[in-house]
Every structure is written in structure tokens, then in C-alpha cells.
């Protein structure tokens, strides 16, 4: 079997694989392209070069939670969106607030969510988020009833264009500076 002969060819292989993968590729995926004859450090370097090569193109190479992917640069979004005029309906406030609680306070139970929002959690809300593969059950809290503990998924980070939860806007942005009266 033929192996790539030079750096240029290696980058071309990576480029073709990333463009056609249909989902983010992580380093392990990409190492397979070279049948184990590639160091991780080299791969990272090649990816950096590839990123630079594409810098003045219309799509860019970005890193998200599950790996690397090519995506259209943000300035083209509004035009591309016209191809699909039926936009997804917005999620309700209940869904987004539940998602925010899970994202910032995970792992949390339904009880935790109800405590913060002050209302009962509609099972539909949890289901919508699970169907989107944005949250999943990561365990049970060892209390009576063993309630499920929810957390956000890597897919959620991918969809939000984030590499990790640390890249979420800091929660302190949303709280008043003096948070007194902690009982």
C-alpha cells in the first residue's frame, strides 16, 4: 500500500478526510489515515498548518469538543441560511433555562432544576433536550428514589462551537457582583 511521500500530501489527505467526514474528526481518527506512521505532535502541527492554509478561504478549520471540522465562516451564515427558509422553531424559555442549569450546574437532578426555576420540570423539556442529544443521564444520585443526574454532552459543545464547558460564558457574567446573604 502506498504511503504519503511528503508533508504536502499528508495535509491533502487530512483536508480531504476532514471535508468529507460529515462529523468532527479527533486525533485518533486522523492517525488512522496514516496507518500508525504519524506522531500526534506531527499531526497537531499539520493541522495548525492546514488551518493557516485555509485562513483566507470561505470555510475554516475549527476545533470543537469531539475534534476538528471545516465550517463556513460566520459572515456567510445569513446567506446560507436562506437556502433553508424554514428555520427551526425556537426552544421555549423553559427548555433554554433547563439547558442553562444543566450546563452550568451539572450534574443535576430534576429536583435541582425545580429548585432553581421554582416550578416543576415538564418531562417534555428533558425529552426535547435528550432527543437533540444535548443532555444525557450520567448516573443517579444516591438518595431515596435514586434520581437521574443530567449533564450536557460533547455533541452539545460541538453544536455550540465550543471545545469545552470552560468556553461557555462565565456564570459570573450573569450574577450581580455582590452575592451576599448565602444561607
Amino acid at each position: 500500500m502506498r504511503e504519503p511521500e511528503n508533508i504536502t500530501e499528508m495535509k491533502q489527505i487530512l483536508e480531504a478526510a476532514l471535508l468529507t467526514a460529515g462529523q468532527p474528526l479527533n486525533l485518533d481518527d486522523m492517525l488512522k489515515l496514516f496507518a500508525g506512521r504519524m506522531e500526534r505532535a506531527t499531526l497537531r502541527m499539520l493541522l495548525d498548518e492546514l488551518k493557516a492554509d485555509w485562513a483566507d478561504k470561505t470555510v475554516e478549520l475549527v476545533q470543537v469538543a469531539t475534534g476538528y471540522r471545516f465550517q463556513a465562516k460566520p459572515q456567510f451564515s445569513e446567506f446560507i441560511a436562506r437556502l433553508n427558509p424554514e428555520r427551526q422553531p425556537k426552544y421555549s424559555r423553559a427548555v433554554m433555562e433547563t439547558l442553562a442549569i444543566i450546563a452550568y450546574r451539572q450534574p443535576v437532578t430534576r429536583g435541582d432544576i425545580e429548585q432553581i426555576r421554582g416550578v416543576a420540570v415538564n418531562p417534555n423539556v428533558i425529552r426535547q433536550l435528550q432527543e437533540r442529544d444535548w443532555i444525557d443521564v450520567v448516573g443517579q444520585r444516591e438518595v431515596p428514589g435514586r434520581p437521574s443526574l443530567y449533564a450536557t454532552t460533547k455533541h452539545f459543545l460541538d453544536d455550540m462551537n465550543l471545545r469545552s464547558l470552560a468556553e461557555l460564558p462565565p456564570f459570573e457574567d450573569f450574577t450581580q457582583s455582590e452575592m451576599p446573604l448565602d444561607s
Partner: protein
Amino acid sequence: MDTETVFAAHSYTSVRIKGEPLGQLPQDLYIPPDALEVYLETFEGPLDLLLYLIRKHNLDILDIPMAMLTTQYMAYVEKMKTVKLELAAEYLLMSAMLIEIKSRMLLPKPAEVAEDDDPRAELVRRLMEYEAIKLAAQRLDAMPKVGEDIHVASAYYQHIVEIRPPEVSLDDLLDAWKNVLKRAKLNQHHKLGRAELSVREHMSQILRRLKAEELIEFSQLFDLVNDGLPKLVVNFLAVLELAKEGLVRITQQEAFSPIYLQASV
């Protein structure tokens, strides 16, 4: 209608008619009940409603005037009741909590109680936490997302799978041959001769008899003296098969009474 009801939030006291401040809403002011319902339903719960009241009136969240807030909150809840909005239990629970806080604040403080033991503390903490989550949710909602604002590249390619022929060892081949032999034996063993007693044949016989006799009592179908067990079984199967195919009708007047067969018309 209580003047400090729902509409208090909109501060209509600043409205002047012919130079006179409008102190009270006209009693005949008509608001379509449906419209009000929609408006009230936009709250995501008691905390959301309280935050709305606090922000609307520019109240200091760290020093909430409990009497005022409670009155207004109760007015909303009353309004919700009157428009028959299904009132979540949480709203009532919050009413109780507000009243409790209010009354505790009216009590003279015992001297030894620490200064920071404010009855409002827990409520304020929850309100602030909820407000932070509410803002975080708005921010998340506004962030670009795949499928909305982020368009992932996906070039087409002809998917070619590298075909690897499966490996075969000599042992595999031997095993396969043994299996073939084993199966051949089994087949031989179970090979059946031509059935001597045909259910179909008996079905025909029964039908023929029914043609002549019209009604046959079930037990008459079986010659217990001369027929062997196999024949009796096959005969019975024939009856069942006939019934299944709808060729005969089997009737019985009551339990344990004689069973009759007749040809279906």
C-alpha cells in the same frame, strides 16, 4: 377591583385625564380575558413573576420592600385565579412563603440574633440565582449553533470500502465439512415416509358423510372399536382443519351436551 392589582405594574398613576391624575382604572375598561391569559402565562413560575415585579418597579433586590412585593404578587395570583388559569401549586407555595417572610420581618428582633439573619435571605438568594440562569439561558439561546448559524462543510465523496476477503484456515474448512456431514445424518434420520394417514383424506371423508347425513353427532365420527389411535387422532385433526377452513360448522347447545357437525352453507 383592587387598585393595586395587576395594573399596578404599569404605573398608571402617572396617567392624567383633563389634568387630573387617574387614580383608579375605569371600572368598565374592557380587557379581553384571553389576552390577559396569554400575558400571565408568559411567566415561567413564581420566581420569574417576582423578578418581573422587582425589575419593573426598580426595587432593590438586596433590600426588598416585602409588604409591597407581597401585595403585588398576591394581586397577580388572584388575577390568575379569576381568569381560571390553571394555577400551578408553586405560585401558592410562594404566596405562603412571602407572607411568612413579611410577618417575620414585623416581629421585633431578639437582641442575640445576628445582624445578617435576614428572613429575606433565602428568597433573595433564589431570585438572584434564577435571574442568573435566566440570563445565561438567553445568552445560550443567542449563541450561534450548528443547524442555525453554523454551517459545517460536507464535501461529497464516493464511498469506497476497502474489500478484504475473509481469511480461511484449514481447521475452519474441516469444521465446515464435519457440520455438513452431521446435517446430512440428521436429515436422513428424520426423513419421513409417505404419510399413511392423510388428514386431507379424512377431511374429504367427513365432508362426504355430511353431504349425505346433514348433521352428525361428534362421537359418531370416531369408531373407537375398529380404528386405532393414529386414525382417531388424524380424524380429529381433520375435524379441526375443516372447522378452521370454515367448511363445517360445529355447534353445541350447552356445555356437555352433544356436539354436532354440519356442512357450512
